[in-house]
C-alpha cells in the first residue's frame, strides 16, 4: 500500500492556554477560523498530508492543552516527535515568557536523543490585532528570550494570524521540512512508527511511576 509508505511526521504544538494553538491547526489543516473552537482538554490530534520537496509526508499534529497543570500529561505523547512548535500570543507577554519552560518541559519528557539540535520552531500568533494591544517592544523581548533562555539557538520564527490566515501555511511547511530532516536523521534507527510508540509508552510509564512522589 502506498499510503503506508508515506513518511509519518509527528509534530507537537505547545504554548500557553489561549495563544491560538487549536486555531492555528484548524487554519492549517481545514483552512478555516472559527470563534467557536472549544478550549482543548488533554490533547487533540489532526493529520494533514502535504508534499515537501517532491516527497509526500503525513503530518500528525498534536494540539495540546495549554494549561500548566496539563503539562504532566505530555509524557503520554511527546515521544517520537520530529518537531516541536512553541507558540505564544503577541498580545500576551506571559505566554512569551513561558516559551522556554515549554521547551524545557518538552525536552525532559520527550527524551529526544539530540536535545541540542532538535528542531523547534517559534510561532507568535494573533498579529492581526491592533498594534496597541501587542506586547510593547516585542522584538527586543523576543531577542532577549531566544538569547538568554532558549540557548541562543537560531530557531525559525514566524508571526502568524490564525484568524486572517497570515503566514500559517508557510510556518507549517517549515515545520514539515524540519520534521522531515529530523526524521531522516533518526530514520535509520526506527523503521516502524508503531513499534516505536509501544516502546515509548512502556518506558515512560515506568519512569513516571517512580518519578511521582506527590
Amino acid at each position, binding site marked *: 500500500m502506498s499510503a503506508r509508505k508515506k513518511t509519518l511526521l509527528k509534530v507537537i504544538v505547545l504554548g500557553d*492556554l*489561549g495563544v491560538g494553538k487549536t486555531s492555528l491547526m484548524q487554519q492549517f489543516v*481545514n483552512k*478555516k477560523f*472559527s*470563534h*467557536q*473552537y*472549544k*478550549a*482543548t*482538554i*488533554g*490533547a*487533540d*490530534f*489532526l*493529520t494533514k498530508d502535504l508534499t515537501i520537496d517532491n516527497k509526500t509526508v503525513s503530518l*500528525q499534529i498534536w494540539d495540546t*492543552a495549554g*494549561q*500548566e*497543570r*496539563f503539562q*504532566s*500529561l505530555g509524557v*503520554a*505523547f511527546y515521544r517520537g516527535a520530529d518537531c516541536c512548535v512553541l507558540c505564544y500570543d503577541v498580545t500576551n507577554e506571559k505566554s512569551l515568557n513561558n516559551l522556554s519552560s515549554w521547551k524545557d518541559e518538552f525536552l525532559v519528557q520527550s527524551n529526544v536523543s539530540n536535545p541540542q539540535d532538535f528542531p523547534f520552531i517559534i510561532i507568535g500568533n494573533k498579529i492581526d490585532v491592533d498594534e496597541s494591544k501587542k506586547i510593547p517592544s516585542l522584538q527586543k523581548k523576543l531577542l532577549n528570550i531566544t538569547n538568554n533562555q532558549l540557548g541562543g539557538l537560531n530557531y525559525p520564527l514566524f508571526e502568524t494570524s490564525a484568524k486572517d490566515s497570515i503566514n500559517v501555511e508557510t510556518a507549517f511547511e517549515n515545520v514539515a521540512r524540519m520534521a522531515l530532516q529530523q526524521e531522516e536523521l533518526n530514520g535509520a534507527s526506527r523503521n516502524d*512508527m*508503531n513499534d516505536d*510508540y*509501544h516502546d515509548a*509508552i512502556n518506558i515512560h*510509564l515506568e519512569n*513516571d*511511576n*517512580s518519578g*511521582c512522589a*506527590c
Partner: protein
Amino acid sequence: MPRSDLFPELAVKSQSKPIHALRSKDGYSSSQEINGLVSDNLHNSSDAQIAKLVNLKFNSNAFALIRQLSQDLSAKETELILLREEKSRRENELLRLCNEFGNLSYVEVDRRLNALKPEKNVHKVVSAMVLDAMAISDSQGSNERLPKDVQRPKPQSRNKRTALRRTQQPFHKEEKSASTQNRKSLAEATDIRSSVGLPVSPNLHDTQNPKEEPIWPRWLHWLNQSEESVDLPNKSTDIQNKSSIENSRNKSVVELESMGDSFSPILTSTIFDADKFGFVNDKPLQNLKCKTSSLQDMPSPVESPVSISKSATEINLTLANVENSESGKALTTLALSQSLDKLKLLNEQYLATSEMHLKQWDILMRQAQTSGSPKSDQDVSLGTFGLKAQNLKKQGSSLRKMFGHEDELSDDSKSFKFLQRLIYESGIPPKHRNYLWFELSGAKNRAIAGEYQRLLANSQGTSDPTLIESIDQIKLDLHRTLPSNIYFNNQKTNGPGPQFAALKNILMAFAAYEPNIGYCQGMNKLLGNVMLGVNESHSHGGSKVSEENLFWLYVSIVEDILPCYSELNFFHPKAMMLLREDSLILRQYLNKLMPQLGKHLESLGVELELVVISWWIGVFTEAVSSIDLWLKLLDGLLIADNPRIKFHAYTLAAFYFYQRALCGFKERDSIYGFINLLKTGNGPNIKSNEFMSIAASFEKQIHTIELKSPS
C-alpha cells in the same frame, strides 16, 4: 364520608360515562373498516403502492380515496373535540367534588391520588408490551400492511394526546395530574393505557382474554379499540386540520419535546433555530468529523426491554436526521429501527414508560417532601433530604425514611434502592432535577448566606497573583465554553449570552473559594452543562436556582461528588498525575472486560490514557454527545457509592458503545478522528438507560477487582 372511599368511586364514575357516550352512536362502521387502511402511513407508500390501493380498494377511483381520507380526517377531528370536552368536563367535576365533599385543596387531591398503591406488576406488563412490540417490529416488514381488521396505533393517537394537553385549562400542575391520576385504582393495564393518553374502555378487562388476533398483543388491541369506539356524529366537521395531518410526523416530535408540563423555551425556538438546550446547529464543527462511512457499523442497540424507552431528544434527533441530515442518517438509522412504523411503536412505548417513571418520581418526591418537612418529622432540621445522598444509606438515619415508600418499601435499604433504581432507569426528570440536585449534592448544607457575594467581590479586586492567574485563564475560556449554545454565546450579536456572566462569576468565585484548586480547564464544561440542566429543569417547572445557589451546587459537585485522588480534589493541579495513574488502571479493566478493543487500540498505538483523561477532566462532557445522557450520568454520580469507580464504569460503558466503531477503524488517525467527533457533540446517540445499565454491570464487575495503587 371517609375520603378513601371517595376516590375509587369517583374514578369509576368518571371513567365509564364518557366511553358510553362515545360508543353510543355508530353510524360509520363501513368507513371505519377501511379507516385504518387508508390513513395509516399512506404518505410513506410509493406511488405504485397507492395506485394499487386505489385499484383494489376503491375500484380505481382516486376520488373515492380522497373522500375516504377526508372522512378519516374529520372523524379524527371529531374524536379530538369529544375527548377534549370530556376531559375538561371530568376534570372540573372531579375538582368540584373534591372541594365539596372532601374539602381538599388541589394539592391534596393530587397527593391522595398518588398515594394509591401502584400495581405491583406494572413492570411486568410494560416489559411484556415492549417484548411484544419488538417481536412485531422484527417480524413485520417495514412497509407491510397490517391485517385489515387489526389496526396499528396511528400517529393520530399521539396527536390526540397533544391536543388534549394543549387544550387543558391552565390549571395548576397539580390539577392536571390529578385528573390523569384518577384511574390509579384500576388495573395496571388501565393505568398504562391512560398514561398514553387514551380513553379507558369500561370493558377493558374483557379484552384481556387471550383469544385475540395472534400477531398483535393485547395492549395494541386496547389502543385500537379506542379508535373504533369513536363515533362520527358530524360529517360536516370539515378538514380544518389539513396542515396538522401534513405535519403529523413533525408533530410527534413536537410532542416529545413537550414531555414536561410547561416547557416553554425561553430563548430557544423564538429567536434562534436552537434545540431544547439552546444549541444552535454548528455546521462548521460537524465538518471536522472523520469518515462517516466507517461509522456505519455503530453498535446496534441491544434488543432488550430497557432499550425501548429513550430520551426524547434521541427520538427527535432520529426523526430529524432521517428526514434531513445526511450525516446523521448514517449514524442514527443504525441505532434505531429502520422504519418510521417501528419508530411510532417505540414512540408509544416511550411515552408509556416515561409516564410511568414520571409517576413514580412524583410519588417519591411527594413522599420525600411530606415526610421531610419539619412539621411531620421533628428530628429533621437539615432540609428535606439532608446532607448528601450518601447519608441516606447510614444506618438509622432518619433521612433515609424519607425515601420510604410506605408499605412496599419500608425497609431503609430498599427505599434507597428505589431512588437508585429510578435514577438508573430514567434519570431524574427535569421538573424534579433542580430540587434533587441541590439536595443530593449536599449543596443545601454547604450554602453559607452572603459568602458567595464576598467571594465574588474578593475575586474581582484581588491582587493575589495565583488568583489573578486563575481569573486570566477563566477569561480566556469563557467564550470557548459551549460556544454554539445561545445561553452562553449570542450568535446574532456575537456577544455574550444571558448566562455568560453567571458562568464567569461562579468560576471566579470558586477560584477565590479554593485558591489551591483555582481554575482547571474542564470546569467550564462541567459548569456549563450543569447550567443547561438547571435551565431545562426550570423550564419544566422545576425550582428556580439563583446564581448563588448554582455556585453552591457547583462547589458541592466539584468537592463532594467528583472522585478524590489521595484526598486531593479532582481538579487539583497535583491530582493530574494521579488521574493518569488511574487511567492506567482503566487500561487494565478495558483489557480484561473488552479484550478485543483493548488489543485493537494498542495495536494501533492509540494513547488510551489521553483519551480517558480528557474524558475525565471534562467530566464526560467530551465522552458523550447528548446532553440528555450527560445529565443522567451526573444524576448517577450524585448517588454513587464510589465516584472513582463510577468514573471507570462510565468510561468502560462509553467504550462499550463505541467498540464496534472503534474496532472498525484500521488507522490510528481515524480513531482520533472519532474521539474528536465526540468532543464536538456529533458522536453517535446512545440510549440513556442502556448506557446506565451497561455502566452498572461494569461497575459490578470491577467492584470485585481490588484497585491497586500503582506506586
